[in-house]
């Protein structure tokens, strides 16, 4: 492995050097760029908030770092990323993973209307529901594909992509071959009406060794539950974006052929085909934006093999229709997309009243509502039931409103309310003590400009729930000194707490406080802080993972060059 890495690194340097040398003569040095990101964590055990992973007992610190280098010259592009993981909980919170090496490399070349890439690449077809190779460092995901890709752009309105390769898994590759083709074509019918059509086909082939494991599992089922698994699965989609004046309609249909998928509800594999229907309609005019979305998933688990679960081996990316919240307490409960089946409906309004007073004060109102149910339990007559707990088919529901207003040139404020119903048993596989969590969160933010370069921001949230860990209050005071410094101090307090996974008595107030500072110089940002973080689900766009509580020091460095 080491030899392989050195060879790759050597090859990269030689290629870059030889091209640089050749072009020195022509005074063309190409373009070199890159970035570096580093996170260091020092763990301080705090049984009161339930810190219990290996890093608190043994390793006491961890480091993640990524150095990305890119060199462009004469239509060639060389990419290389070196990854460092020392005792990291990033891939699996209960593990301390240590390994360093070349994470990805690639060489690509533009030849007229053709782009060819070999090595590792990230890409997606359409919204990514049939294929998405992407990286999310926040969640420890890296679904790069190692292989070859060709992109052909015959006209500015048409693009055809094709690839074949293996999915990356840490510093290794999954053995299942993935290949696919995608075509997109834009047609401008007239100045008010245009449409963009797309279609893709993806195929995944299971290797013999993985098939042996699948067969071994099937042979242990009761006879009536056994089936003939498939080596190949084919997935296709067609999608279209239709724009007419202020309206945009997006529709997508995905279908996959029968293959073995794992159903955790019955704890065994089944032979099933699957499909997804997705549509969104948006309307935008001066002072008003409306977006409505609907998605239905039926057994659409597309992974490198049915033996992978959670966030492992994902080939398809199924986006969430629920609101992506950023405030700490508002983002506490998220709807993990249910690939085995769900119905989701989301509706969002952005209103900017057009009266003189409101325009002057930049008043904006955001309203969002969403509901997620099981795939067989969608009933339009029950879209807004009074009591969520009585409706056990529901997975998730959220109502959200915020209003922001600029009172003076120096003072602006925002107030809002969020109401959530959350099926915790489903999303987090928690004990059945509370299957459903009902949470009401009141939140607000005030920003006051002290001087042209200094501002003070205060945010506060109160999450009221009788379930899960109980209620929380969160407050943060932040001082920004442009262009270099930012400091904040905050505390999140667990009030009316419910005992779960902690050792403190129920009468203690549990504080999750944090102190944070950052320094920014040009494209470099250094941050440091001491923080306590409550256990919960961390999500990006419907892909989530349950993260344990954190207590300790976190230092980060990020730079682009």
């Amino acid at each position, binding site marked *: 492995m080491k030899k392989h890495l050195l060879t790759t690194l050597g090859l990269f340097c030689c290629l870059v050097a030889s091209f640089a040398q050749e072009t020195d003569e022509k005074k063309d040095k190409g373009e070199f760029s890159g970035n570096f990101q580093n996170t260091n964590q020092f763990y301080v055990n705090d049984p009161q908030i339930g810190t219990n992973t290996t890093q608190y007992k043994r390793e006491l610190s961890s480091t993640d770092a990524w150095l990305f280098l890119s060199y462009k010259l004469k239509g060639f592009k060389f990419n290389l990323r070196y990854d460092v993981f020392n005792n990291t909980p990033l891939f699996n919170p209960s593990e301390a993973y240590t390994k360093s090496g070349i994470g990805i490399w690639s060489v690509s070349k533009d030849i007229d209307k053709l782009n060819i890439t070999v090595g590792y690449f990230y890409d997606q077809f359409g919204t990514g529901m049939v294929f998405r190779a992407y990286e999310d460092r926040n969640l420890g995901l890296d679904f790069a594909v190692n292989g070859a890709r060709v992109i052909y752009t015959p*006209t500015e309105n048409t693009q055809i992509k094709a690839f074949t390769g293996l999915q990356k898994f840490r510093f290794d590759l999954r053995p299942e071959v993935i290949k696919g083709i995608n075509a997109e074509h834009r047609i401008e019918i007239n100045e008010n009406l245009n449409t963009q059509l797309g279609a893709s*086909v993806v195929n995944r082939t299971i290797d013999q060794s993985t*098939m042996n*494991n699948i067969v*071994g599992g099937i*042979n*242990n089922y009761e006879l009536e539950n*056994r089936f003939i698994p498939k*080596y*190949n699965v084919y997935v296709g989609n067609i999608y279209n974006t239709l724009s007419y004046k202020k309206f945009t309609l997006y529709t997508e249909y995905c279908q996959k052929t029968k293959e073995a998928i794992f159903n955790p509800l019955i704890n065994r594999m089944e032979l099933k085909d699957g499909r997804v229907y997705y549509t969104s309609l948006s309307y935008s005019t001066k002072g008003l934006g409306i977006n409505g979305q609907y998605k239905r998933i039926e057994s659409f688990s597309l992974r490198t093999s049915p033996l992978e679960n959670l966030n492992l081996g994902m080939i398809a990316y199924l986006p969430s229709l629920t609101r992506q919240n950023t405030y700490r307490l508002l983002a506490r409960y998220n709807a993990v997309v249910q690939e085995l089946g769900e119905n989701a409906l989301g509706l969002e309004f952005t209103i900017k009243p057009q009266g003189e007073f409101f325009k002057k004060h930049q008043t904006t109102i955001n309203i969002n509502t969403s509901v997620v149910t099981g795939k067989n339990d969608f009933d339009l007559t029950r879209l807004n039931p009074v009591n969520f707990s009585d409706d056990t088919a529901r997975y998730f529901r959220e109502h959200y409103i915020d209003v922001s207003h600029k009172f003076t040139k120096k003072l602006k404020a925002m107030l809002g309310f969020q109401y959530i119903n959350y099926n915790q048993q489903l999303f987090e596989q928690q004990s059945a003590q509370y299957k459903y969590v009902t949470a009401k969160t009141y939140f607000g933010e005030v920003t006051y400009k002290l001087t042209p370069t200094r501002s003070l921001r205060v945010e506060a949230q109160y999450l009221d729930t009788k379930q899960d860990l109980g209620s929380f209050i969160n407050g943060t005071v932040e001082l920004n000194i442009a262009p270099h410094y930012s400091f904040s101090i905050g505390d999140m307090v667990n009030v009316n707490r419910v005992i779960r996974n902690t050792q403190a008595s129920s009468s203690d107030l549990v504080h999750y406080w944090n102190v944070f500072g950052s320094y920014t110089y040009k494209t470099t940002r250094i941050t440091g802080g001491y923080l306590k973080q409550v256990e919960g689900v961390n999500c990006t766009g419907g892909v989530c993972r349950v993260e344990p509580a954190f207590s300790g020091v976190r230092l980060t460095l990020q730079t682009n060059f």
Partner: protein
Amino acid sequence: MNNSKKYIKIAQIVIALVLLFSACDEEIPTGLNLTPERSVFDTTYITPVIPSPQPGNVLIEDFTGVKCVNCPRAHEVAKKIMTSNPNRVFVLAIHPLNYLDQFTKPFVEGDDHISKYDFRTKEGGDIFELLGRSSSMPIGAINRVLFSGESTLLIEDSKWNAKTGEQLAKNAIVNIDTFGKKGIYYAEANKIRINVKLTYTQNTNDSQYVSIALIEDDLIDPQKNSPATVDEYEHNHVLRRMVTPSTGKQLKGPIVAGKVFETTYEYVTTPTETWNKKNLKVVVFVHNGTSGSNKFEVRQVKEYAIN
């Protein structure tokens, strides 16, 4: 718009090709068992008294064929190893169906000789595939171990003796026993009852499987040999049928020292399975599952006559 029509046409062709491919029939995966269970009684418990471990026996899986000119040489190698290590080494002579037909197909009319039997079995083909199949014969697996310096489980017969010696030095992690005369016997004229007791003497994290094979000795039929085909060649240890799935039957639950699996299997011969009862034997072997660095490795093997 002409371009649009062209691209739509291309898309239609691509979709048609994909549908064509997806409609193609795939081979049924090796080792998949869709037949009813042959185990009629099953119990598991933990014994407080852990018995002494049995010496580790060795299984030689000899992949062979009646038209393979060098295979008799491998039969001799296996026979010598068995004779030198009585009751410690057992052989399965596997004639894989659908693989290496030029070596394994029986002699038929039009050939210089005619076979009475077709020794090939689907299970034999499954096992050949599972262990990584080879493009040549004779070839064999010794306890299904991937030996140091080897890239495959299947190795040439010239290496069998030395590798068997290595394996014989080990103790088994699981003892295989039966129950005397009422252990493995003919319950009815065409029904073989097999009572097996497996007792683990060590913990293991490897997934564990048990495989049971029916073999037949003393089958007289043509065999290619050097320099000429032998008409009355004695074929021994010929794999006739697997009682368990070809990949084995999984032993469920954590495997700890003292864990006992007692299982009764029944095999009912069909009218076409005209095997000589007197020459039938049962080979029981316990092995690792299909994943891990030492996948498939045989952890103990025993052979029994049928009473």
